[in-house]
């Protein structure tokens, strides 16, 4: 759409200040920086600290209350926290990659990755920006989905919509777990291998939360081992086999 510029008055210069401020306050960080790079007037408006204050409180409502009153601009704080979370996500990604064998991850490592995200107190927007990228390993997406459901309490259609927007809702994982064979008439039975093949979207809407329950509990009681794989991995390493033996 070509704009006829009859006079040189720009779209914004004839808007009263309260309107222009309001519009700037509705922008996300990226668009605010873009607008602030347009001209001196816009730089001054878009990088004013009060606008960044509301960006901080919107994205990290809990952070606000835990701040000590030392001198730092809200803009600086937003920038530093954003970068820090990005670095944290990057290190989790590298960790998971290093621990994976043949696209599969043991639950102990998975839970450690989960705890790293949890410990940094990622917010919903942070998860979307840093963990829900389609070009990342699906196991990292999985950590994000699990975190949203278990920690942020976001599930169901809301979460599925976001997964679709991020183009990851159809990515699949396979969760396998080995249960200790039961004792029957003095004999220990074979260990059971159970598995579930689910999409991230399915996980978000799962009624009983059984798959996430398996992940959350890890190896405990009768569960000997839990392994999560990116789907596509065909062979199931059966390295844990206990044969029958007499008591």
């Amino acid at each position, binding site marked *: 759409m070509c704009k006829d510029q009859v006079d040189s008055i720009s779209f914004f210069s004839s808007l009263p200040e309260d309107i222009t401020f309001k519009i700037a306050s509705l922008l996300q960080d990226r*668009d605010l920086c873009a607008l602030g*790079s347009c001209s001196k007037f816009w730089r001054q408006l878009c990088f004013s600290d009060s606008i960044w204050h509301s960006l901080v409180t919107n994205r990290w409502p809990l952070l606000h209350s835990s701040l000590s009153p030392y001198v730092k601009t809200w803009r600086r704080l937003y920038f530093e926290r954003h970068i820090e979370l990005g670095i944290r996500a990057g290190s989790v990604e590298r960790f998971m990659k290093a621990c994976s064998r043949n696209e599969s991850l043991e639950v102990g490592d998975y839970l450690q990755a989960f705890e790293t995200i949890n410990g940094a107190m990622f917010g919903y927007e942070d998860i979307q920006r840093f963990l829900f990228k389609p070009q990342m390993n699906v196991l990292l997406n999985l950590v994000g989905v699990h975190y949203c459901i278990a920690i942020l309490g976001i599930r169901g259609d809301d979460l599925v919509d976001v997964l679709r927007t991020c183009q990851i809702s159809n990515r699949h994982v396979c969760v396998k777990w080995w249960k200790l064979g039961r004792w029957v008439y003095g004999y220990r039975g074979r260990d059971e291998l159970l598995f579930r093949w689910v999409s991230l979207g399915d996980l978000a809407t799962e009624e009983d939360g059984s798959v996430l329950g398996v992940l959350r509990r890890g190896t405990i009681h009768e569960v000997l081992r839990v392994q999560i794989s990116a789907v596509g991995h065909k062979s199931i390493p059966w390295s844990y086999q206990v044969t029958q033996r007499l008591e």
Partner: protein
Amino acid sequence: MASSSSNLISLKTSDGTVFKVERALAKTMKTVQAIIEEADANIYMIPIHNVFSHHMDMIIDYYKLSVAGKSKEFSVEKLDNDELKDFLLAVHYLNMEDLFEVLTQAVADRLEKKSVGYVRKYFGIENDFTPEEYAAIRKKNDWAFKGDDIEPEEDEEKQEE
């Protein structure tokens, strides 16, 4: 036609058209409401400057949708930037909270994920930075553009001087 005895308020736009609107709609216009309350006698006709009849049409559309619980269906997509700006100014003058939120959000949405060059051109913002100043700003804000599909400078060369 005395406005206080009926439920309709007469509003006259700057292009001379008279709209008879429900009192409830007039109440959403704080400016109009103030005029009504301040008047000692009944007002027959309230002039609304800066508001044209096509603005009133859209305001009435929005009102009808929001009364039916369908305010999300209201769209200003068909308006170009100047039309949107004029409408925003009209709504701002009338001091209509909800519609003001909708329109400012519409402007913000038009800016979403656009390159700097695009924003400048689209909204007619003149670049008054020296190349050095501009380079410094871009470097400082580079972090915000990481992970973009569109390069922030994509439309820079199309920008008019």
